[in-house]
């Protein structure tokens, strides 16, 4: 193996990449746009849920409940209604997500020690928002009940839940999304850089020139892989720094464990990118191929929705996806404070994936060459 030659090729690749306006654009613009858009807009946190109150009971007890809703940061009361027929238009037109109905006999029931129903009518069009808004409401009612019982001097069973969340103590969705973006953008950039590298030479006709040099196919492959890995490393480092400085997300675990994960992940991504590059005849096809790999890879990775919720068959498919393992590593190191020992089951599948994709890329490369 001629290391000097490989090194020279890698240098040439870098120069070609940085001189080409399009390649520069791909490396710089989409990652920044995506980082900002995803980090600020992609949120599952629900606040200021618009609600309407339909209170038919003028009692103190009902007013107390209403004031608890009004005082909650999660809800925003935007309408008070007094007729059944007002409910449907508010919900249908999406003016409120939730209508809270306190019936006429609410306080009477409460005082007589009977169950006092409180009806919540919810717009289920966005199932996730509806579910979380109901959770907030349930907590308020629970609190109200406890106060009522205490005020009535009815001890009963004083059971309560003391809930704590670990790793992401305030349950902010940004803490979940932004480390995921580190993985996502590293994959996108590395894949595009490597997928375009051979296709660009094919289009420009310089690939034939490369073939008549003393470099062997394997050496060309390595020379083409190096820029992808280096740029991926730089990009990942940049986004991790931004994650910690701009978004205040902790980095609690071992940096070495994170970088071991990054390197293994980059090797897998470069393998896939070179495979696409070897098959594609034009840059157009290479971009399309990268897109065809990226969309399923992102969706079936646990980036935005949990893998455990997918059907069993789809869950098995996710084992082929390097992003799946790397996401656990990034989140594990950043939030859970993991080190090597807890991540070993994420490392070895990526080693397997990287060896297979790189071998396949080498094989395809040789076949397309002659």
């Amino acid at each position, binding site marked *: 193996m001629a290391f000097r030659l490989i090194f020279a090729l890698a240098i040439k690749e870098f120069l070609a990449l940085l001189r080409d306006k399009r390649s520069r654009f791909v490396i710089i*613009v*989409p990652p920044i*746009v*995506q980082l900002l*858009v*995803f980090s600020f*807009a*992609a*949120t*599952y*946190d*629900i*606040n*200021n849920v*618009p609600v309407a109150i339909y209170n038919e009971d003028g009692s103190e007890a009902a007013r107390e409940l209403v004031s608890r809703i009004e005082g909650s940061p999660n809800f925003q009361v935007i309408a008070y209604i007094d007729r059944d027929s007002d409910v449907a238009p508010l919900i*249908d*037109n*999406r003016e409120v997500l939730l209508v809270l109905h306190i019936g006429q006999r609410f306080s009477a029931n*409460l005082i007589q020690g009977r*169950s*006092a*129903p409180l009806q*919540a*009518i*919810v*717009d*289920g*069009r*966005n*199932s*996730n*928002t*509806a*579910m*979380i808004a109901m959770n907030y409401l349930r907590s308020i*009612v*629970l609190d109200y009940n406890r106060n*009522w019982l205490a005020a009535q001097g009815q001890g*009963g*069973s*004083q059971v*309560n*839940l*003391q*809930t*704590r*969340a670990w790793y*992401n103590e305030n*349950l902010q*969705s940004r*803490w*979940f999304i932004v480390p995921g973006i580190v993985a996502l953008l590293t994959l996108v950039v590395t894949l595009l850089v490597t997928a375009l590298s051979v296709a660009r030479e094919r289009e420009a006709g310089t690939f034939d020139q490369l073939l008549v040099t003393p470099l062997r196919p394997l050496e060309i492959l390595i020379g083409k892989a190096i820029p992808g890995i280096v740029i991926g490393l730089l990009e990942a480092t940049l986004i991790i720094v931004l994650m910690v400085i701009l978004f205040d997300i902790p980095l609690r675990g071992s940096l070495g464990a994170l970088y071991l994960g990054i390197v293994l992940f980059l090797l897998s991504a470069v393998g896939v990118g070179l495979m696409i590059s070897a098959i594609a005849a034009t840059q157009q096809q290479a971009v399309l191929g990268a897109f065809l790999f990226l*969309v399923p890879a992102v*969706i079936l990775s646990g980036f*935005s*929705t949990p893998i455990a*919720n997918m059907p069993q068959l*789809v869950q098995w498919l996710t084992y082929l996806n390097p992003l799946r393992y790397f996401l*656990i590593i990034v989140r594990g190191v950043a939030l859970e404070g993991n080190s090597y020992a*807890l991540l070993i089951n994420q490392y070895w599948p990526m080693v397997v994936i990287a060896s297979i994709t790189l071998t396949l890329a080498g094989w395809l490369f040789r076949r397309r060459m002659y």
Partner: protein
Amino acid sequence: MSSLSSMRLWGMIRKESLQILRDPSSIAIAFVMPVVLLFLFGYGVSLDAKHIPVGIVIEQPDTATQSLAGAFERSEFFRPLHFDAIQSAQQALDERKIEGIVWLRNNFSASLLAGHEAPIGVIINGVDSNQANITQGYIQGTWLAWLEHYAASRGQPLAMPVSLQQRVWFNAALSSQLFLVPGLIAIIMTLIGSLLTAMVVAREWERGTMEALMVTPLRKSELLIGKLAPYFILGMGGMLFSVALAVWQFGVPLRGSFWLLLVSSALFMLVALAIGLLISIVSKNQFMAGQLAIIVTFLPAFILSGFLFDINSMPGWTQVITYLVPARYFVAIVQTLFLAGDVWPVLLANMAALFIMLLFFFSLVWRKFRKRLD
């Protein structure tokens, strides 16, 4: 427009249609992509958690703790694993074997019988905050149901004087599939209308075949209509196909009028096509067109449209940006038409917004598209 010649126009449409038919990749994008995307998102993206692995730590087993553990066993939302000590459960949480812990300390039953405070410790892995919220809600629900039952069986006063009764409209089971699949149609139409059109038309600029068209006696209006008509038909075909899959494959009810769906889709399709055309005129090469189309149309349609993430919960300035995203209006229309029905105030407001965008983008295309070379 007065001298729109049907002969020239027809010839142009015929040429464009033949071009699409001969290039199998366009047909593939219009019909294969919806299938792949719908199946991928329909089955791959789900917010419905079931059989969540939770650790139940019972330090001192007796009838009270057993009945509470039983409540978790019977719930379809949980898959309980039993631990004797909190340390081993915490280790399992660290190793990601369980998502949460319900911890009954050794004095739990004694305190419960004596009427003292009997706290239950709950620890949840908060990394996925949304999932953690949902898990927390389920734990609370299971515990409340048990508490009611426990109090009733011992003849104690009601543990929960006020009982919350939820009635969910439009999506009674709160299935995330019913919520996501209609919005997905907006994403697919964005891909066909903007990405496909931008790249294909940019290819004409790149190859210089646009110049060849410019020297023909075709008028600007004829050239534009002729270019757009075949893609409009292709996109609407993809739309109808997606609707059929949504209704028959994913069982999403179409409660509103089909014709309204068709009209609003046509409106959105035209906006998407205008944006696609504009991108191709601005970039004039396939690579830039593809990148721009992804950044300007696909990503916003995905993130800023209310398809997955709730617009009301975004920061104020991001909410303002969403008003510039055409998919926002169309997602509201399809979600309402599929799940709620013909709610005129929602439909009219959003269709009016789409119509204004249509006028805006077409006037922009009209000004930028010149029948000459720079």
